[in-house]
Structure formats: structure tokens, C-alpha cells
């Protein structure tokens, strides 16, 4: 274990371990995957796991959570993005293969209009 010998060391160490606890508070961005039976049947679990990987790969500060069926079953897998100060955006038919694009656009702060469920 490296000894902490300066304020920079402490801050570096904190940045390293920060990831472990970010889920325990609101980081500003939350991505919600619908995991009702309809969602799971449409492949939401794969979406969820890929999403998690992609976010981690890009070191993005976002929490991933899940919820149940919201009644728009024909659009599953549904992914909703909540960003602080903005109204939530709901995307439909987000299968695992579409996730990298979604995360790219999320990182750039853009909305993919054609995927949006209204």
C-alpha cells in the first residue's frame, strides 16, 4: 500500500477509490433500464450489462439502475436517461448492439431523436 505523503497523494487515492462508492449518492446522471418481464424478454438484461461495461470503459460518472414495466411493452428494451436539471429522455428498442452509440451520444450530451419514445 503506498503511503500518502501529500495532499496530491490523498486526492489521487480518492480518485482511485471513488468509483467504489459513487452508486451510493446521486452523481447527476442516472440511466434506468426497464427490467420488467417484457423488458427481459426483449433482451434488457444484455442491454443492462453492456451499458454497464460501456460506461465503465469510458469512465463515465453515471449510475445505472433498473425499474419494472411501465406499460410501454412494445418499445422494450426501454432505457431512460435522467440528467440533473433536464427532463428525462426515454429511448425505445435499445438492444445491446445499440448501447455503444447511446453511450457515445450521452457522453457528448446529445439526444438521439429518432430513438425517443414519446
Amino acid at each position, binding site marked *: *500500500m*503506498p*503511503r*500518502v*505523503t*501529500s*495532499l496530491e497523494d*490523498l486526492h489521487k*487515492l*480518492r480518485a482511485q*477509490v*471513488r*468509483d*467504489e*462508492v459513487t*452508486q*451510493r449518492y*446521486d452523481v447527476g446522471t*442516472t440511466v*434506468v*433500464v*426497464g*427490467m*420488467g*418481464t417484457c423488458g*427481459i424478454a426483449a433482451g434488457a*438484461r444484455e442491454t*443492462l*450489462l453492456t451499458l*454497464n*461495461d460501456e*460506461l*465503465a*470503459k469510458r469512465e463515465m460518472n453515471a*449510475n*445505472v*439502475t*433498473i*425499474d*419494472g414495466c411501465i406499460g410501454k411493452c412494445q418499445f422494450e428494451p426501454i432505457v431512460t436517461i435522467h440528467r440533473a436539471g433536464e427532463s428525462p429522455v426515454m429511448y425505445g428498442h435499445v438492444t445491446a448492439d445499440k448501447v455503444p452509440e447511446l453511450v457515445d451520444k450521452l457522453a457528448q450530451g446529445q439526444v438521439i431523436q429518432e430513438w425517443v419514445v414519446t
Partner: protein
Amino acid sequence: MAIKPRTTVLLCSSTGCAASHSKPVYEAMTAELQRRGMENEVRVVTGGCRGFCSMGPVMDIYPGGIFYCRVKPADVAEIVEESLVKGRVIDRLCYKDPVSKKIIPIFEQIPFYARQQRIVLRNCGRINPRRIEEYIAFGGYEALAHALLAMKPEEIIRDVKASGLRGRGGAGYATGRKWESTYKAQGDIKYVVVNGDEGDPGAFMDRSIMEADPHSVLEGLTIGAFTIGAHEGYIYVRDEYPLAVQNLNIALQQAREYGFLGKNILGTGFDFDVKIVRGAGAFVCGESSALMQSLEGKVGEPRPKHVHATDQGLFDRPTCLNNVKTWATIPHIVNNGPEWFRKMGTKGSPGTMVFSLVGKINNTGLVEVPMGITLRDLIYKIGGGLPKGRKFKAVQTGGPSGGCIPAELLDLPVDFDRLAEAGSMMGSGGMVIMDDRTCMVDIARYFLEFLKEESCGKCSPCREGIKRMLEILNRISSGQGEMEDVEMLESLARTVQVASLCGLGKSAPNPVLSTLRYFRAEYEQHITDKFCPAGACRELIAYRIVAEKCKGCMLCIKACPREAVSGTLKQPHTIDQVKCIQCGACFEACRLDAIQVVPKSAVGGNGNGHGAGEAVKEKVA
């Protein structure tokens, strides 16, 4: 497979929840996740005390903060399936508001938490206390770095003084002034000491902090050591707190590895290390001078305080001793500044205070609130009121050295000075709530019994005075009391208060004096009527079934451990007074208020008052 877990499950594993079997829940959870191949997806963290001990074992699921209460191993498969896989909330495991009957799934929205202001308890239940990394991730050791690298001791003292922080151990002495005296004291060897000898019945604030956030205590202590110029520190903790000792030891080890303790801390050249000393559980060792004697390996007895510990304390060296909560508050003051601290609480008692709510209260547990909150808010809004809708009678604050505060004073703001005015004290924050089934004579007797055992015996006012007071109370509660006894009690109490050597003795009569002050009529009832209306002094009471109210449901018959209640279904039951031991089980079981507490003299013969003499009957009416 995911690289990074997407969900964190925090399971309380402190003493309270461990007692309600949180370990099997943890094991079931890890096994179930493994079975489903989800062990890399979900991180299970054993956290410290969340404070909601009556609801234990408690579990939080993040992100989102779903809060599950009283989780059993059998619930685990459902939690994984529904909440971790499908994202549904399981209603039956959520907290249900006893008043509105509404289900509240999110931790922050539960009234018990929503009305708290958690500063010292901030990390309790949020981090794994056995991993220094989690403490650091939440900003830990930032205050230490700031203090050591950017502040001079005088500046730290100035800030602590300006914050108005008062010792959280009970007496409420200004912490900044204590630090200043130790800083200015002559001598090259100085000590800092953590008083973790929490001895009040029903108090567990310090234990929970040492268990759930040990690094906050260490960080505060190290800042204190740097400030006053100490290189050695001691944590005096009761041996009855094995988990606290364990977690503190782990914390010390990890802090040393990272260089927050030991030689050349943070590269500043400052050396400091800490030893943990386990106390044998003597109440008097919570008194500072007795604690230091005990630390030196001597018999734990107080000494007169004309020379302050800040000049000659441990091993006759200048010593700065503070309570666990005081030390744990320091990093917050260093980080946020004294003005921030002053904004909370009252003028004379700034900041927050941690209380343990116990006794006849719905939400048993640990709470942190700003000073100055009223007892009513604390007991009803946060504590959720009394179980079974019983009537509030009194609250005992400050442990055995505190006093009982009656219902008339429920709107009293809680701070050091106001509680003292009411004849009680803040103490370290224990609050025992009592209902109308609690007898105040009996309570005074209970605390004196405790204090009699715990008096060290060094000075006679405490050693003899408490014993004599207890004898009088025993007489009164067994029906042998005379009116002169009350005066004798008062006079003895005043003597013990003035003439005792240490704080323990001086405050020992508080339970008697405060109950006499607010519940004198109850004492007199015990003496003149030979009756205990609360039904606690068994020798003075009997239970009787009111035939008109009894519907013959047989609940009391089932409840009685002595088969003293008899009767048949739908016929009024009767109590055999010869067999009855006045345990009150029937009274608690009856849903129709058909069982009455009456003076022992009111029942005779067949046990339902029918054989009693006319005079006695009149007294009952």
C-alpha cells in the same frame, strides 16, 4: 460479464443488526448471487449502524436507495429476483409508516431519517467501516491533511473555540478551551485520550460510531494530537464492545499502512500513534480522572480536580480527553469552518447531538438532530411515538446521572443548559422513554441500584449516601414508607450532590431529585395509599378483572405464566390472588381494558374484591 458492479447492496452488520441475525442474510445473499452468476454485477457491502435498530437487519440497495427492514435469509431469493434483477420494490419489506400506513421505500423519505441532520453519523451505515478506502472516497482524512499541511495549532484552536463545540460526553465543557489549556500546558510529553467508556444503561451512540466509522474518531484524534503537541494517544473502550474494538484495530492498522498514523504523517514530520485500551466495564471509569487511573493500570478511582487533567492528567502529563463524538465532530469543523457549525443548534449549544432512543418508543435507534429540537419532535416525529398508543409519562435523559423530565416539559428544547435547568442533564445522549406503566419510584430505585453497584467507594457521601437512599426507596416501594422518608431522601440527596468527590457522585441523586420534583404525588401515593398506580411495585398492587368489561376471550388465561387466571369462554374470568405474582402479563394481553390495577389491600378472599372490607372498597372507588 460486467467489469464494474452496477449495484451495491449495503447490509448493516453492526451489533444491533447482528443481534437480529444479519450475518445469515449476508451469507444467503452472497450464495444466491453466486448461484445466479451475478457476483460480479452486485457488490455486497457490510456497512455499519444505520441507526434504525428496531427495524434490523436493514438493507439499502444503491443506486436509488431502496431501504428494506427486518430482512430474513428467506427473503433473499426474492430480493435478488425482484429488486436486483427486475428492479421492483418489494412492498412487504419496506418501511411502513405506523401513522399514515403508507409504504416508504426510499431511505431518505422515512420520517425517522428525513428529520435528522446526520453529521457525525454521516458515514454510519454508508461505508464499510473495515475499508479505509471507502472512508477516503467520501472525503476522509481531508481534514487531517488540511490541518497538518495548511494550519497552525493556534489556528485550529481558534476554529474549535469559535465553533462553540462542547464536550459530547455529558458535562458540556468547551472543547476549544480544553484544547487550549493542554496546548499551553508545560511539558514535552502530552497525551490525547478518547473516552469510549460508554456506561449508561440504554446508551449506544459511542459504540455505533466506533463500530461504523472508526476512522472519523482517529482523524479527529490525530488533529487534536497535532494541535496540542501529543505523540501518543489512547482509546479507552469497553471490553463489552468487541466489534468496536475489532473495527478500531483494523482502522488503526489501515491508517498506519497509508501513513495517516505513525512516523512522518503525510510527510509533515509529525509523529503520532494510538493504543487501544480495553476497560473492564466499571461505570466510574467513564469519569475522566478515573479513566486515566485505569489507563495507568491502577484501580479506576477519581481524584479531586483542583489540578486539571489538562495540566496533570495521564501519567501526570498534560492530557486532553474527549468523548468519541467530540473527536468525531472535529474533522467536520476543520473541513467546513466554525461558522458552518454555529449555524446548527442553539446559541449556547451549537451543532448536532446524537441520541439513542430506547425504552417505550416505536423507533428504537440512533438519531442525530440539531441541538434545540424539542423533546416532542424527537419523541413523536422522529421516534414515532410510544408503542400501542400508550401515554407518555417521562423521559430519562443523561443516563443514571440524569433526571426524568415529565410530559409537561415535552416542548423543552434539548440543549446542555435547558436540560440542566430542568434538573436533568444532556449526558452522553441516552434517552429512555417511559409510559404510564412505568413507576417513577421504581425508576429512581433502578438507577440507584445501578449506581450503588458502580460507586467506587472512595468517598463516603456517594458510597453511603446512595446506599441509604436506596434503602429508603426499597421501603417505599414495598409499602413500608413513612412521610418522613421523603424529607430524608431529599436531605440525603442534597448532601451527596454537594459532598461527593467526582461527577458521578455529584450527579447520582439526580434521578431521585428529578422524580421527587415532578412526581412527588406518586411517592406520596406509595406511602399513604400503599399503592403503585403504574403497577410496577408488585408488593403494593393486585390485578382484578372487571366482570362487566370482560367478554371471556381467554387471552389473559393463555398469557398467565402461573395459571392464576381461570374461567370459561364467553364468561367473565377471575384471578386467583394466591397464585398471582403481579407480573402484568394478563393486563398486557387484555384488549378490552377489563383488567385493572388495584391496591393490594383492595382484593381479598376470592380475588375479585368481593371479599374485601367496606373501607377498602371505598378506597378503590
